[in-house]
């Protein structure tokens, strides 16, 4: 793994009797879009929780950009360039779209023990924030309060916030969750643009999107990685077919 940006080795997490992550191995190469798929309860969310730092693994190590980040707190990982989005939209409802993104910029613009100058008047924060909004197609909604925006726009904003922190890698937890066909298509388009400049780890249920976007796919079943390879390899893998019996059609027909 000469150019692995993110390496996960032997990651294990138990919740009581349930082994949510069972000796998970994962290598995400710099520049690739790596998707993680798996049936419900496969431990995808637990995995992303551990990668983001919200869940402490029982065993195993996580390396990011050559550094061991297993013990690094959530905010420290973000500051290293590992940004994430949430499966269930997680934003700042009291603020405008621009404020939301500006906060993400601010987090990465030095410490915030600046008690005097009005933050909303700082171009240093506002301009990158506007740029990030433009990227996700929300430039015209900058001053809209979140309450009056649609779910699809919230999903775009999730992504905009992650981008505003100028990450080297994105952890996307089901970015298509709850989107209609049009909105999904837009999200796929945005992600396709992003994958040119960023390393992305994508967790997603929408198989169509996964097979359209991913360079490599890792399959997680009962907390274990059962296969890892290109979309074509994954499609041909008998173990994967086995695990996805119910969803076989989705895998084979794309």
């Amino acid at each position, binding site marked *: 793994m000469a150019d692995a940006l993110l390496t996960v080795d032997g990651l294990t997490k138990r919740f009581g009797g349930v082994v949510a992550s069972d000796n998970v191995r994962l290598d995400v190469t710099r520049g690739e879009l790596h998707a993680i798929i798996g049936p419900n309860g496969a431990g995808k969310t637990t995995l992303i929780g551990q990668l*983001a730092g*919200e869940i402490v693994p029982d065993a195993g190590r996580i390396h990011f950009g050559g550094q061991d980040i297993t013990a690094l*707190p*959530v*905010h420290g990982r*973000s*500051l290293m360039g590992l*940004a*994430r989005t*949430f499966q269930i939209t*997680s*934003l*700042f*409802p*009291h*603020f405008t779209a621009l*404020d939301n993104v*500006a*906060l*993400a910029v*601010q*987090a*990465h613009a030095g410490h*915030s*023990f*600046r*008690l*005097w*100058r*009005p*933050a*909303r008047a*700082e171009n240093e*924060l506002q301009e990158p924030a506007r740029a990030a909004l433009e990227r996700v197609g929300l430039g015209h909604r900058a001053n809209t309060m979140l309450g009056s925006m649609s779910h699809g726009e919230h999903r775009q904003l999730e992504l905009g*916030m*992650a981008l*505003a*922190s100028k990450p080297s890698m994105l952890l996307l937890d089901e970015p298509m969750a709850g989107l209609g066909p049009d909105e999904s298509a837009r999200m796929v388009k945005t992600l396709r643009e992003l994958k040119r400049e960023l390393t992305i780890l994508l967790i997603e249920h929408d198989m169509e999107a996964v097979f359209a976007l991913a360079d490599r796919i890792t399959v997680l079943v009962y907390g274990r990685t059962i296969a890892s390879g290109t979309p074509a390899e994954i499609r041909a893998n008998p173990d994967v077919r086995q695990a996805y019996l119910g969803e076989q059609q989705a895998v084979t027909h794309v």
Partner: protein
Amino acid sequence: MAQLTPRNVLVATLLVLLALLPVYCTVTGNYFLMSLFTRILILGMAAVSLNLIMGFGGMVSFGHAAYLGIGGYAVGILAKEGINSGFIQWPVAVLVSALFALGVGALSLRTRGVYFIMITLAFAQMVYYVAIGLDRYGGDDGLTIHKRSEFFNPLNLSNRTIFYYLCFALLMVTVYLVWRLVHSRFGMAIQGARSNDRRMRAIGFPTYRYKLTCFVIAGTICGLAGALLANHTSFINPSIMFWTRSGDLIVMAVLGGMGTVFGPVIGAIALLVLEEALPILIGGASQLVTGHEVQGAREYWQLILGPMLLLIVLFARGGIDGLLARPSRG
């Protein structure tokens, strides 16, 4: 900023009235009114500081009166020991409050929701019982402060008008400082943490240290208000920091409006004026109805105040301030 909304008109009117009140009181000799409003200014300052953490930071502290007590006792104890200089008393009041806030905050901010409320309450009650145990300083009965804090010459706190204006100036400075703070990067971080702490950490904010700093700033301001309060009443006893006092501060913030920096000042005025006015109104009403004033009717003023608070909480989420600001939107 300077739009002519009903809300801004009210704030401007209040400020002018507050600024001119001593003139009226001196002319009419109504020193009760001046004393009441000195108290309003001081508790308004405490409520503004509480609202910094509660309204903007989402940290509902149910022990904010502890800082009033600490600030007050710092002045009282030093005065009793013969140190009357305000240059010593006030910095001590502020410093001890800050240290106490640091300790309480460092522990309580590791919890959330109801636990946070209960821990802040527990710490405040602890200080309350410590004060009761201070036999040398009056214990339960409290301590009379024979001399107000001494500063350089024109700033003579024994002069009611000068003391009033000092409180007024400090309240204005507090409102301005908090206003700057809330809109700064620090303030955005604090408000973000109230709104969604988890997301704040995910985008790279170490929220704990910002919240703790905010908690200490609020405690420090309230400690100064405590020093003022002790000077105002020339007396200090443990009830200054009983938990109901913390509740009063919360009510002021909620009543006035937690969404703005000035809201709690409106709340302090409303609550304390109602406390004085309602008994008189009830007395008057009973006289109208029965022809003579009913014995003890005045004591039931809280029966009116309670439902009023309830209505505000139920139907005007932004408090009095929010109620007035609303038409500007439509």
